[in-house]
């Protein structure tokens, strides 16, 4: 008998249909993966089970949990269920904890509420639970506040809250999306162990097919509020019977076609003579420590520590590392948006560090940037024409209006958009289209180097594949060199020639992409590679397990 | 509405603690608008000091009565020598100061000598200018010798500035006044109230009030609600004539309109062009509609005047017909003066409502003849500084409250900047004339000259509006001097 049984669940918010006829079940001890791209309704499904929907939402159908009709249950009944029989873990650990209460209070609160235990008993149980999720009370006393913990640690606290009363069902909504790969692997391991220990049912919601494949026994694929396909994970993904399943799986494993890879440096005597495009020499960046008192400051934090490397013209390089390793700081210094504490950066042989904005103009013409967030990287108040044309500011000779429109049209064409898009506002475009706009803006000055900071990590897998193709294509067509900043090894593998692994402000390993990712040498690289979910590998392992 | 009021009032009665049910009331809260700067009437000109203390806490040898007459006070009786220079006062016996010390002739000598001393800070030293010597004949007799006869001497020593103080307490009277009156000082909550209580040791006819609190209510706006709500039971110098009609309809209150010595005038700077021209001043006089001004600024209370003399005065000559309200005539005069296109001027207004309200009306009336007035409200200190002292003004409105003060127009450097030798001569003659009929003629001539010259715009005589609980009696109706004599005030059944 199933623990959770969802039948014909339909839901509308206001007049907008969100879910239609969703069917889903979770058995005790089973891991059910719920997969879908953004807007597919997977989070709403979870919130419906918890009955934590906005009050404008109307649900129909049936949800049975452990024999209780959830949709018909009273609010008191639901309160009794939540936290006791059903636990939930959310995506954003940084904001999921109340900042003004200690972690002890927050874990104990649910215990006290449901069991009417004394404060001391509840705290005792909370201490044990925190210990279980990897926060031993010696280092993490109950009196800690959330802001004193890192993201991964906070997610452990959230899991402790959810699992404190050993619920029958745990719902985890994108529990690792905000974490880097290494933390993701740790948290997934923890969840897996907890489920096994207590024979919990787990409803794991994710956009990441690889993660779900590694974790889930069965999988339900959701699209636009409808179930596309459901079934055994390994079989569903290996057979790929439904076209959407196939589309998702292929997009997840997509590698753009690249006719000519650019293997230079040590290996290629012909190009070795050519001057490197970018040279980073012994660059260090310190941030001043917090003021301890009026006169004293803590020791400075070293974000980037004595880093040197170079990029050749046309080369595509990935800078990979865990969050907080200093890769974004390094990127900002290369873009001359921030200055190093020591060391120099040369672009096309000229020093760009410590230069005034006017002196930087020629360098800026040849160096552009693509950001991660397709929503935040455009000023919503301006039209596409003006936004894409923004880098033209660095041209020596200001183009006329007609010239400008022509250049913008050309750039838009190159990224697959039409000239009519010029007069639209950014909000009229989808996320993928915006990232195309972002690329159009980056190439309008015909730069020699584009720095791309996590350019596809905010995109759904199918869109991500298209954007990666576009990057590859432009690399071929325009001969532009890339520096990709990413924590995602699949991206690095897909379109870069070389990979640099960054750890704690230092570059610890560099080499050809395939070599580094297949045979990592340094500890940091090994950890990254080991933790990175890989759909191929996961399916293979599942099939193997099932024989 | 009615029903609600009944219900709520009933609720209020239940809540009230029934204190009002007591039979004979002996306490009183009196409203005053200005707070005295200190409490020594012999050391300051502020009328507010007398409003609280005169005849209540402090007494002189004589005192001034409700109609301006001279009455005996600490002096039981007196004799005047035939040449009019020697006054012998017989003092009451058994009089005690509030601090318990006895009052005798030495105190009189001390007080008068102190007031006329060189280093005296008395605001009205002129009152004592005629005194040559003050002698103690015996503890109950004082002889005062004058330098020359002065018919107003007994009146003069009846002023608040001439009250008798004890040598021991003279220096501390500012904070803690000690006098011989029927009330003694109890408490001064600065900014709020001054409380007097009945003195047990009073020598004269006992007063019927046990306690009198002078509550300071500076805003006219607050005066009405304070009265209506019963917080204040009497407001002898009621600052808000506008509300009089309203209060009159309320049977709980008595409203008494009396006379003052206040000629309210539109003062003109006679030396400042174009006001130095007679036609212009006359034009202004023709442009003024006194009835509208009295109605608008003084709720219709107040008698129009045509020159600088109170209509109640024996010497009064009715000159109000000289400049009737006539806009055409005014315009014509301005045209004669070459100002047919009008001109601009300022009108500085001190704080009292007669000035602020009257100013708006006058500005509107003068606008009808092409004179565009810019209204500049000023505080008293600024008015005294800019207008009265520096004569930096075009027009202003003020009430001259001193009695018999027509001579100010002959004073050199007075803020009117008026200079007329003929008028000066009349005033000089007046000072040397004792014949009553002759005096009347001279005063009539003086009034006529001022009116003919249109020295200022003569508006109206300021009324004294007194409001008090209908159960109260004994307040002064008129204001011969600014005082709240409580000696006869009592609650009736």
């Amino acid at each position, binding site marked *: 008998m199933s623990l959770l049984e969802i039948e014909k669940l339909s839901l509308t918010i206001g007049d907008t249909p969100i879910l239609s006829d969703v069917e889903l079940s979770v058995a005790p001890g089973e891991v059910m993966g719920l997969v879908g791209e953004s807007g597919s309704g997977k989070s709403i499904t979870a919130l419906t089970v918890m009955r*934590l929907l906005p009050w404008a939402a109307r649900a129909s159908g049936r949800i049975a949990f452990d024999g209780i009709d959830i949709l018909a249950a009273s609010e008191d009944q639901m309160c009794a269920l939540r936290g006791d029989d059903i636990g*939930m873990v959310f995506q954003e650990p940084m904001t999921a*904890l109340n900042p003004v*209460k200690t972690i002890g209070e927050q874990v104990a609160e649910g215990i006290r509420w449901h069991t009417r235990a004394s404060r001391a008993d509840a705290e005792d149980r909370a201490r044990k639970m925190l210990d279980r999720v990897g926060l031993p009370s010696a280092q993490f006393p109950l009196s800690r506040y959330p802001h004193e913990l890192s993201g991964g640690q906070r997610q452990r606290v959230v899991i402790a809250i959810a699992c404190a009363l050993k619920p029958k069902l745990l719902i985890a909504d994108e529990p690792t999306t905000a974490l880097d790969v290494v933390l993701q692997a740790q948290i997934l391991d923890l969840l897996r162990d907890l489920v096994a220990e207590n024979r919990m049912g787990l409803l794991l919601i994710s956009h990441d097919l690889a993660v779900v494949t590694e974790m889930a026994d069965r999988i339900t694929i959701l699209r636009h509020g409808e179930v596309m396909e459901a079934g055994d994970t390994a079989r569903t993904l290996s057979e790929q019977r439904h076209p959407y399943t196939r589309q998702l799986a292929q997009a997840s494993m997509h590698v753009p076609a690249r006719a000519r890879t650019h293997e230079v440096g040590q290996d290629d005597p012909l190009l070795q003579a050519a001057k490197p495009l970018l040279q980073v020499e012994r660059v260090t960046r310190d941030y001043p420590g917090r*003021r301890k008192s009026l006169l004293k400051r803590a020791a400075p934090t070293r974000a980037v520590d004595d880093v040197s490397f170079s990029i050749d013209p046309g080369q595509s390089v990935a800078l990979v590392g865990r969050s907080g390793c200093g890769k974004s700081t390094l990127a900002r210094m290369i873009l001359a948006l921030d200055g190093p504490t020591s060391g120099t950066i040369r672009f096309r042989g000229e020093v760009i560090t410590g230069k005034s904005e006017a002196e930087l103009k020629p360098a800026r013409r040849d160096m552009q940037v693509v950001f991660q967030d397709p929503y935040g990287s455009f000023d919503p108040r301006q039209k596409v024409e003006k936004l894409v044309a923004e880098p033209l500011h660095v041209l020596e000779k200001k183009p006329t209006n007609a010239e400008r429109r022509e250049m913008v049209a050309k750039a838009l064409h190159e990224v697959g958009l039409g000239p009519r898009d010029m007069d639209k506002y950014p909000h009229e475009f989808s996320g993928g289209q915006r990232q195309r706009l972002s690329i159009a803006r980056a190439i309008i000055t015909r730069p020699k180097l584009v720095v791309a900071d996590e350019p596809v990590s905010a995109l759904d897998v199918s869109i991500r594949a298209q954007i990666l193709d576009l990057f590859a294509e432009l690399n071929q067509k325009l001969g532009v060199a890339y520096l990709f900043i990413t924590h995602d090894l699949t991206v690095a593998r897909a379109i870069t020639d070389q990979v640099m692994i960054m750890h704690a402000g230092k570059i610890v390993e560099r080499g050809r992409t395939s070599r580094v990712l297949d045979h990592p040498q340094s500890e940091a690289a090994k950890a990254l590679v080991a933790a990175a979910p890989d759909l191929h590998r996961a399916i293979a392992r599942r099939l193997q397990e099932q024989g | 509405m009615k029903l609600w*009021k009944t219900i709520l009032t009933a609720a209020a009665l239940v809540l009230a603690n029934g204190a009002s049910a007591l039979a004979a009331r002996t306490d009183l809260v009196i409203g005053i608008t200005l707070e005295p700067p200190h409490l020594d009437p012999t050391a300051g000109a502020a009328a507010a000091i007398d409003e609280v203390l005169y005849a209540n806490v402090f007494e002189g040898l004589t005192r001034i009565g409700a109609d301006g007459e001279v009455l005996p006070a600490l002096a039981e009786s007196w004799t005047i020598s035939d040449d009019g220079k020697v006054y012998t006062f017989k003092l009451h016996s058994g009089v005690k100061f509030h601090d318990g010390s006895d009052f005798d002739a030495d105190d009189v000598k001390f007080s008068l000598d102190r007031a006329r001393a060189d280093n005296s800070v008395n605001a009205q030293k002129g009152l004592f200018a005629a005194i040559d010597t003050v002698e103690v004949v015996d503890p109950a007799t004082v002889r005062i010798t004058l330098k020359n006869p002065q018919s107003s001497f007994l009146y003069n020593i009846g002023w608040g500035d001439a009250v008798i103080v004890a040598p021991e307490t003279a220096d501390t009277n500012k904070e803690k006044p000690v006098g011989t009156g029927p009330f003694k000082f109890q408490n001064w909550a600065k*900014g709020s109230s001054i409380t007097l209580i009945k003195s047990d040791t009073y020598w004269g006819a006992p007063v019927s009030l046990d306690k009198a609190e002078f509550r300071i209510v500076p805003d006219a706006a*607050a005066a009405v609600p*304070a009265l209506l709500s019963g917080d204040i039971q009497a407001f002898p110098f009621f600052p808000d004539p506008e509300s009089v009609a309203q209060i009159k309809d309320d049977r709980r209150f008595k409203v008494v309109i009396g006379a003052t010595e206040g000629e309210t005038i539109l003062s003109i700077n006679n030396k400042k062009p174009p006001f130095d021209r007679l036609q212009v001043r006359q034009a202004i006089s023709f442009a003024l509609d006194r009835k509208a001004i009295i109605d608008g600024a003084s709720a219709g209370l107040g008698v129009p005047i045509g020159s600088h003399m109170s209509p109640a005065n024996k010497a009064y000559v009715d000159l109000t017909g000289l400049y009737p309200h006539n806009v055409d005539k005014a315009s014509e005069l301005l045209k004669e003066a070459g100002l047919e296109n009008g001109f601009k001027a300022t009108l500085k207004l001190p704080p009292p409502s007669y000035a602020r309200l009257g100013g708006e009306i006058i500005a509107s009336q003068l606008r009808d003849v092409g004179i565009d007035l810019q209204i500049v409200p000023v505080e*008293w200190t600024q008015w005294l500084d800019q207008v009265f002292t520096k004569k930096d003004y075009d027009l202003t409105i003020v009430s001259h409250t001193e009695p018999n003060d027509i001579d100010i127009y002959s004073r050199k450097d007075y803020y009117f900047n008026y200079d007329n030798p003929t008028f000066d001569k009349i005033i000089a003659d007046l000072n040397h004339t004792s014949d009553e009929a002759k005096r009347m003629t001279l005063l009539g001539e003086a009034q006529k000259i001022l009116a003919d010259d249109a020295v200022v715009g003569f508006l109206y005589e300021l009324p004294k509006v007194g409001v008090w609980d209908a159960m109260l009696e004994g307040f002064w109706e008129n204001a011969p001097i600014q005082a709240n004599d409580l000696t006869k005030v009592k609650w009736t059944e």
Partner: protein
Amino acid sequence: MTAYLLKRLAIALITLVLASMVVFAVLEIIPGDPARLMLGMNASADQVELLRNQMGLNAPLALRYLHWAGGLLSLDFGRSYTYSVPVIDLVRERIVVSLPLALIALALSTIIAIPVGLFSAGRHGRAGDTIAMGAAQLGVAVPNFWFALMLIYLFAVWLRLVPAGGFPGWSAGVWVALKSLVLPAIALALPQAAILARVTRSALIEVLNEDYIRTARAKGLPFRAVLWRHALRNAMIPVLTILGLQFAFLLAGTIIIENVFYLPGLGRLVFQAITQRDLIVVESVVMLLVAAVIAVNLLVDLSYAVVDPRLRSRQ
């Protein structure tokens, strides 16, 4: 924590010093000679000059400032021109009216506002919320002095429940004295309560959208418990900010209300002093109120640290 405290303290002190300079400078440039004002119109030029020397008005500007500021520190505010008593005595007499009035009004506004804010936030978007917030909107729009006039006519003139104004002094009995503060306190408090209720509500609604509220709900806590236990404390920071501003406003802003009710408080003292050009009193009281505002702001800053552990542990 100490760094945070020290920084706030330093800022408060700097502001205080700057404010004293501004007050001093403004009163320096005011037209009119204080010595002349004190002596009146009939004094001779010699007398004025003598007094100027006595008052130290002929000393260099910087010296005069230091002397004045030093006096302030030792609570020596000088003597009032009009009352010729030490200003500190006047202040002492008045503050026993203004401070209780401000505190009563503050308490009243808080007692009204916080429950209304909680009520409204809990019913966000529903009829109860709309009605409560409509009333709050109205409360914000009503000028307090006009409201005071209406109160006087309703409760003092029409129903005769409370005095229309004036203050009998605390010696007349606490109950009697309090009674005369009721209307002014209501007139002051209601518009402030309206503002505070709106702030409380919007702060709560913002907090209720936070992820950790969902976490708490997922624990099985009913909405009401979440509102009180999790939302309220997090919403306290904007509420405290407004409370701090309101106290400053109430202490000084009583100026008009004290005039309407002719209460002998600091507000009226300063108003009277302004019209009488009693500049010593003006500058002293303004300085005092400025110091009070700065002190309350400092207190609010410190209370942030009590409410928010993130500020507390900031090294």
